[in-house]
């Protein structure tokens, strides 16, 4: 048995083409669930982070929180959530949001704080109110940092959603976990390859976004690789 035979077996199985175990369906589940978790995390973390960054209050607390969050084991949170709240996607969503929120929070805070203080003063000087300064000056100049935060959070969520297949979540992790449980190595390796492709694709998507979707004046800024392995 070697790699090519495994992958050949995996991709030629008719189960991969249609039905709940098809590749298209598993990728769709994975993406949909990850997007859902990211959306909730962003709704919680970004406004809070912008506010903390702008007022400068609570920055130390945010840094400490982000450091502590990095120490939390994903598998532990996911298994505990399912035991406490019952099997189901909602139970898994809570730890995923909790893990995606800290990098977004830090990115929002750092992004706003990174705004040139002279520019902020100038904006106040020409008569902008505080909400206007935040929205029209700080938020645009925080975009590159925010984007880097989204990249970290996305990669993290994709990885955690894979692990969460262990507690019954759908998505590409199913192949890996079911393959391990039934000693179907072709399935495990095929699933792992797809997960890797998805994670690398997400990286690429954010790299392109940083390159082409940002306002021209901000593109020159280097995207700091602030993150962690997942």
């Amino acid at each position, binding site marked *: *048995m070697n790699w090519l035979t495994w992958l050949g077996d995996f991709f030629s199985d008719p189960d991969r083409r249609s039905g709940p175990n098809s590749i298209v369906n598993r990728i769709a589940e994975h993406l949909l669930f990850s997007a859902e978790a990211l959306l909730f995390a962003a709704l919680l973390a970004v406004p809070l982070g912008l506010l903390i960054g702008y007022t400068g209050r609570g920055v130390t607390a945010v840094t400490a929180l982000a*450091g*502590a969050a*990095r*120490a*939390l*084991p*994903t*598998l*532990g*949170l996911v*298994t*505990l959530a*399912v*035991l*406490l709240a*019952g099997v189901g996607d909602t139970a898994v969503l809570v730890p995923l949001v909790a893990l995606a929120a800290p990098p977004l929070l830090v990115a929002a805070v750092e992004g706003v704080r990174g705004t040139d203080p002279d520019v902020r003063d100038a904006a106040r000087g020409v008569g902008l109110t505080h909400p206007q300064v935040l929205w029209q000056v700080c938020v645009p100049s925080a975009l590159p940092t925010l984007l880097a935060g989204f990249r970290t959070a996305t*990669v993290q969520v*994709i*990885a955690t959603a*894979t*692990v969460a297949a*262990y*507690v019954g979540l759908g998505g590409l*992790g199913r192949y*890996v*976990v079911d*393959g*391990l449980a039934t000693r179907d*190595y072709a399935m*495990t*390796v095929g*699933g*792992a*390859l797809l*997960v*890797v492709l998805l*994670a*690398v694709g*997400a*990286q690429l998507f954010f790299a392109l976004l940083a390159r082409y979707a940002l306002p021209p004046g901000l593109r020159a800024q280097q995207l700091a*690789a602030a*993150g*962690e*392995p*997942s």
Partner: protein
Amino acid sequence: MDGEPIVRWYWIGDHLGYLGDLLADHAVIALLPVLIGLMLAIPLGLACARHPRLYQPLAAVFNIVYALPSLAVFVVLIPYTGLATQATVMIPLTFYALAVLLPTTVDGLRAVPDPVRQAATAMGYGPWHRLAAVELPAAVPYLVAGLRVAAVSSISLASVGALVGRGGLGYLFVDGFQRTFPTPIVAGIVLITALALTVDLLLVGARRLLAPWAVREKGAGR
């Protein structure tokens, strides 16, 4: 799970020795890769700091390594390293550590101002002596910052290894989940977080000992 409390204290009391064994196993699986990563990052970082052409492709590769989900990488290694072996978990963790440590090492080595380097040379320091006495000490604050991220995430990631049969304290998650018994899971989360925070504090302490100026500089504003 009705009526089952989140923590049954007697279970923890009955299993202290067992928890200690798992903690020791976890510390080795998680931290030995960080140490190896550091030993690889220093020579590699030196080469990269001197030859930027080497650094760019390496940085790009490690940026991708960084994003690979751990479970997928563990699984891919099983045919070579075997199920439930330390190597299956420790090899990927080494690469993750290296991916974190290489950029911080390069930044640290580049942070030595040229006049300082030239002064050392003028005082008669050879390249190795200068490296040991000037450049590496100046890079310590950067190295420690990288080590903190690498060590803390390695400790939390190692537990995913439980899904491929070797995850130290991560085994408590699998065990608790299979028996619908939350006590081991809570114990595992607490011990892993405590181990990570302890190592983090030790690294901060090490920085204060090895590079006391770094703390002063930070206190002086910025």
